[in-house]
C-alpha cells in the first residue's frame, strides 16, 4: 500500500471546495435568460380535475406560460415509467397505470402537479399560480395500504382492480407448510415498517435549456444517475433523441435513493424550456419535497418462523402488503420483491422460505427505494423473529444466532441468492467483545438503581449490494443492465482523468476512486481527477445506488487500468528495447526484468503520445482505455450491530447509551470514509426506529409535512458509536469490495427495537418508538400482567 493507496484514510479531495462554499449544486447554476417554474399542486388526495382556468394567471406580470396536463398531452409528452417488470403468481404482469408529468383528468395524491407557471421571477410565478382556478370534484381517498384491497375501497386506477399492482411470491409454499406442521416452536409477529420521507438536505432541482441552433436540450438535475435519466426521458418520455439531450448532475447534496428516480418536474422544465425558448429553473422547497420526493418503506407484514426442538430455524413464512403510492415510481416494483424477498434468509441456514407480497396503489406520493431499499425491511423481519424466538424459547439471542448461522460458503439460500463469502461468527464474536456483552447484567442492575430499564438488542444483518449481474437482473424483470463503465485517460504528462458512470452525492468517489489509481499507477493522488455526472463527458453509466459504486464502479476502473498497464508495457518495451513479456510494472516504474533498465511512468506516458519510439501504424499512439464491468454476483456485506438502551418508565423516553457496529465490507479503500458511511447509516436507521414516520390522515393529507412535524435525528439522539470491521473479501470482484453505503440503515432499526422491547419486556411496539409509544407499550404490558 502506498500512502494514498488502497486502505489509506486520506482526507477527501472534494472537501476543499465544499468547506469554502465553492461546490456547484444545481441551484447554484444560473443560466443566461433563465426564468422560473412554480408548480401548482393538488391539495386533494383524490379528485377529478373538471376544468382549469389559466387566463387570469397568464395575464399576471412577468408570466411567460401557464401549462397544464392538456398541453402536455397535446405535445405528446410520454408518461413516466417503472423500469422493473414484476410478474404475479398467476402469471399476469404488474399493473402500471399511466403517470403523466402533469396530472390529466384526475389528481391522485396531495402534491400531484396540476399546472406549472413559468415567469420571469419565482415570486411572479407564485403570485400568478394563486390566480389559476382549478375546479375539482372530490373523490373518496385511500391512504392506508392495509385497506387498499378491501371491498368498496376507492378505486384509484382502472387498470388495477382492488388497487392491486401485483401479487408476487417467492420460495416453496409446500415445503414451508410441511416444516411448520412439524415445528416445535413457532414465533409469529405482525408489524408495520414505517413510511419514511428521505429528506436529502439539498432539495431536488432542475434547469432545462433548449438550444434551437443545435435543436438540443440540456438538463441540470439533482440526480444520482444522469444517464438513466437521459435514457428514460428520451426513450419513454420522448423529449429529445438521446444524442440531443445532455444531462448534467453537478454536485448533489445527498440522495439516499430519492434522487434515482425520474420525476415530473425535470420533464416539465425541459418541455417548458423549449416552449418558452428560455432556460427554465425549478427548485423544490422543503415542504414541496415532503409532498413529492418518493417516500420509503411502508410495509404491512405478518411473519412466522418455525423452529425445531434444538432451536434450529426450519422455515420462514412472510406475507407483506407494500404501499407503492399513487403511481409506480422508476424502480418501485423491485424494492418489495427482489430487493426484499431474496434477503429473507438473513445470515441463517433456513431450509424453507415462502414470501408473498401484494403491492398496492394508495392516494399517497409514490414510494420507491430509500437507503437500503427492501433490505432493511427484510432484516427487520428476520432479526425480530430470531430475537423474539430466542426470548420465547429462553435461549440467549446471541446463542440462537450462532446455532443458525450459515457456516459454509458459497451458500445457496432458498430465495435465489448465492452468498459468496462471509464469516458471521467472527463479526458476532467481535461485537460481543466490543459491547462487553458479559457485563450487560451488571449494567442493567445499575440502571435499575436509577429507576431505568436497560435493554440490549442485536441485529446480525445481511444485504445484497454491488447490483448487479445484468443477465441475472434481466431474468428477474429489470429493464436495464446493471454493469458500470469507466474510462481512464492518461495525459502526455502522466496525470490521469478517470471518467466513471457512478455519481457521487456524499460518498467521496473523487477521493476513493483516485486512491485506486494512485496505488495501481504509483502516482500521487493529486495527479488524478475523477469526472462524473455529465452525459457529454461520460459515455454511459448506471449511476450510484445500492452500495454499488465500490463493488461495480471501481471494478470497471480496475478493468480499464488493466488495459492501460498492458498498453503502457508495450510502449515501455519499445523504449527499453526489450520484449514486452520482460517488462515489469511496479511502484510507477517499468523495468526490464532482471536488469536495472527502467522508465518512469511519466516518460512512458509521454512516449505513448509522441510516438517517436515505435511505429504508430503498428501500435496505436495514445494512452486511453475504457471498460464495461458486469459483476459475476451480488456482494454480501454483513455484520453485527448491538444497541443498548435505557428507558425511563415514567416518561417512556429511550436513550441509546451504547452502539457497537462490526461490519464486514470486504476490502476497504478508505476507512475514514467507510466509517462515515456507517455513522450516517446508523443515524438514519435510528431515525426510523425512534423518530421518523410519515403519517397520512384518512383523507390522504400528509400531516407530517415539515421538519417541525417530521422528526429527523440530531446529534444528541446518538451516542458515540463504536465502529469496527472484520474482513472477508468478496471473491466476486477484482479488489474484494462489498459495499458499505446502506449497512447502517439496514442494521440499525431492528437493533433499536430489539433493545427497547428487551428493556420493557413487551414485544408489542411499533416504529417510531417515540416516548409516547414506549410509555403506552409499558402500560399495556402492565395491564396484561395485572390481568394475568
Amino acid at each position, binding site marked *: 500500500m502506498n500512502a494514498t493507496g488502497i486502505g489509506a484514510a486520506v*482526507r*477527501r479531495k*472534494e*472537501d*476543499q*471546495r*465544499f*468547506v*469554502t*462554499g*465553492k*461546490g*456547484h*449544486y444545481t*441551484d*447554484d447554476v*444560473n443560466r443566461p435568460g433563465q426564468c422560473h417554474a412554480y408548480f401548482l399542486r393538488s391539495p386533494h388526495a383524490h379528485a377529478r380535475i373538471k376544468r382549469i382556468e389559466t387566463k387570469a394567471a397568464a395575464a399576471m406580470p412577468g408570466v411567460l406560460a401557464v401549462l397544464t396536463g392538456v398541453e402536455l398531452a397535446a405535445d405528446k409528452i410520454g408518461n413516466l415509467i417503472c423500469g422493473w417488470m414484476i410478474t404475479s403468481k398467476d402469471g399476469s404482469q404488474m399493473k402500471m397505470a399511466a403517470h403523466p408529468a402533469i396530472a390529466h383528468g384526475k389528481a391522485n395524491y396531495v402534491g400531484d402537479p396540476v399546472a406549472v407557471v413559468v415567469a420571469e421571477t419565482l*415570486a411572479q410565478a407564485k403570485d400568478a399560480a394563486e390566480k389559476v382556478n382549478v375546479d375539482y370534484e372530490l373523490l373518496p381517498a385511500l391512504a392506508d395500504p392495509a385497506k387498499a384491497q378491501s371491498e368498496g375501497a376507492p378505486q384509484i386506477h382502472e387498470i388495477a382492480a382492488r388497487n392491486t399492482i401485483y401479487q408476487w411470491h417467492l420460495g416453496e409454499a409446500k415445503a414451508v407448510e410441511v416444516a411448520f406442521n412439524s415445528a416445535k416452536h413457532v414465533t409469529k409477529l405482525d408489524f408495520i415498517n414505517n413510511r419514511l420521507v428521505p429528506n*436529502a*438536505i*439539498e*432539495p431536488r432541482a432542475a434547469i432545462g435549456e433548449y438550444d434551437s441552433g443545435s435543436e438540443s436540450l440540456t438538463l441540470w438535475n439533482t440526480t444520482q444517475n444522469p444517464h438513466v435519466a437521459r435514457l428514460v426521458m428520451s426513450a419513454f418520455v420522448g423529449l429529445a433523441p438521446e444524442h440531443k439531450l445532455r444531462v448534467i448532475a453537478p*454536485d*448533489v*447534496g*445527498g440522495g439516499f435513493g430519492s434522487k434515482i428516480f425520474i420525476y415530473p418536474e425535470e420533464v416539465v422544465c425541459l418541455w417548458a424550456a423549449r416552449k418558452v425558448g428560455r432556460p427554465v429553473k425549478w*427548485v423544490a*422547497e*422543503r*415542504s414541496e419535497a415532503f409532498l413529492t420526493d418518493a417516500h420509503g418503506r411502508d410495509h404491512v407484514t405478518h411473519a412466522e418462523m418455525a423452529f425445531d426442538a434444538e432451536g434450529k430455524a426450519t422455515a420462514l413464512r412472510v406475507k407483506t402488503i407494500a404501499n407503492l403510492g399513487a403511481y409506480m415510481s422508476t424502480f418501485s416494483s423491485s424494492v418489495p420483491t427482489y430487493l426484499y424477498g431474496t434477503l429473507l434468509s438473513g445470515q441463517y441456514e433456513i431450509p424453507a422460505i415462502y414470501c408473498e407480497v401484494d403491492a398496492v396503489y394508495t392516494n399517497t406520493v409514490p414510494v420507491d427505494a430509500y437507503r437500503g431499499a427492501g433490505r432493511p425491511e427484510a432484516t427487520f423481519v428476520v432479526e425480530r423473529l430470531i430475537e423474539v424466538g430466542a426470548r420465547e424459547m429462553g435461549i440467549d439471542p446471541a446463542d440462537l444466532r450462532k446455532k443458525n448461522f450459515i457456516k459454509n460458503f458459497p451458500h445457496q439460500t432458498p430465495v435465489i441468492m448465492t452468498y459468496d463469502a462471509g464469516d458471521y461468527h467472527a463479526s458476532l464474536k467481535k461485537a460481543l467483545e466490543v459491547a462487553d456483552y458479559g457485563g450487560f447484567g451488571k449494567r442493567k442492575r445499575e440502571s435499575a438503581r436509577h429507576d431505568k430499564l436497560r435493554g440490549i438488542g442485536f441485529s446480525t444483518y445481511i444485504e445484497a449490494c454491488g447490483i448487479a449481474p445484468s443477465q441475472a437482473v434481466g431474468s428477474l424483470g429489470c429493464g436495464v443492465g446493471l454493469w458500470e463503465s469507466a474510462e481512464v485517460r492518461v495525459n502526455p504528462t502522466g496525470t490521469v482523468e478517470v471518467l466513471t458512470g457512478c455519481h457521487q*452525492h*456524499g*460518498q*467521496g468517489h473523487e477521493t476513493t476512486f483516485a486512491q485506486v489509481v494512485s496505488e495501481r499507477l504509483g502516482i500521487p493522488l493529486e495527479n488524478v481527477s475523477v469526472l462524473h455526472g455529465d452525459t457529454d463527458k461520460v459515455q454511459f453509466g448506471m449511476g450510484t445506488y445500492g452500495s454499488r459504486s465500490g463493488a461495480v464502479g471501481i471494478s470497471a476502473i480496475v478493468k480499464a487500468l488493466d488495459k492501460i498497464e498492458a498498453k503502457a508495457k508495450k510502449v515501455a518495451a519499445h523504449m527499453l528495447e526489450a520484449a514486452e513479456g520482460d517488462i515489469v510494472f511496479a511502484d510507477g516504474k517499468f523495468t526490464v526484468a532482471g536488469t536495472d533498465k527502467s522508465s518512469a511512468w511519466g516518460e512512458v506516458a509521454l512516449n505513448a503520445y509522441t510516438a517517436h519510439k515505435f511505429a504508430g501504424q503498428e501500435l496505436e499512439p495514445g494512452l486511453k482505455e475504457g471498460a464495461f464491468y458486469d459483476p459475476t454476483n451480488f456482494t454480501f456485506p454483513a455484520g453485527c450491530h448491538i444497541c443498548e438502551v435505557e428507558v425511563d418508565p415514567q416518561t417512556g423516553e429511550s436513550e441509546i447509551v451504547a452502539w457497537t457496529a462490526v461490519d464486514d465490507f470486504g476490502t476497504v479503500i478508505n476507512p*475514514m*470514509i467507510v*466509517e*462515515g458511511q456507517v455513522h*450516517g447509516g446508523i443515524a438514519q436507521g435510528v431515525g426510523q426506529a425512534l423518530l421518523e414516520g410519515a403519517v397520512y390522515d384518512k383523507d390522504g393529507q400528509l400531516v407530517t409535512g*415539515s*421538519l*417541525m412535524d417530521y422528526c429527523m435525528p*440530531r*446529534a*444528541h439522539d446518538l451516542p*458515540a458509536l463504536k465502529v469496527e470491521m472484520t474482513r472477508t473479501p468478496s471473491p466476486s470482484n477484482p479488489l474484494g469490495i462489498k459495499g458499505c453505503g446502506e449497512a447502517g440503515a439496514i442494521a440499525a432499526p431492528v437493533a433499536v427495537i430489539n433493545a427497547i422491547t428487551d428493556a420493557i419486556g413487551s414485544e408489542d411496539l411499533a416504529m417510531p418508538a417515540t416516548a409516547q409509544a414506549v410509555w403506552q407499550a409499558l402500560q399495556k404490558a402492565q395491564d396484561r400482567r395485572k390481568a394475568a
Partner: protein
Amino acid sequence: MPAVALTVNGKPVTGDVDPRTLLVQFLRENLRLTGTHVGCDTSQCGACVVHVDGKAVKACTVFVWQIDGANITTIEGLADPNGPLHPMQEAFREHHGLQCGYCTPGMIMTAVDMVNRKGHDLDDPTIAISAAAPATITS
C-alpha cells in the same frame, strides 16, 4: 423597493430589493454568493447560517431590509481566499465532518459562532445540543 446597504465579506454592497427578499436570497441571487445554501422553508435545517454583525443567523429567517447597514460574513469570507483555510474549515476537512457538502457552509459558520460564544466551555454534550439549535436573529 427599499434600498439597502450592507457590508458583505468586508465589501460595501447596495441593492434595491423587493421587501419580501430574504437575506439568503439576496446573498445567493443578487450577489451570487452561492456558498450559502437553502435546505428548508421553515428555518430549521441550519444550512443557510451566516454571520450578521458577528453572530450566527439563519439567513432564511431575515428580510434583507431588516438588517440594513449590517456587517455580514458568509462562508466565502471566512478565510482569505488566497490564504490557508480557517481553522474550523480545516477541522471539518481533517475530521471528515462532511459528506455531500451542501449544508457544510452553514455548519461551519454555526461552529465558528459556538466557539466564539463558548470558547473553552465547549464539551461534547454542549456541542450536540447547540448544533441542534443554531442561533436565529432573535437570540
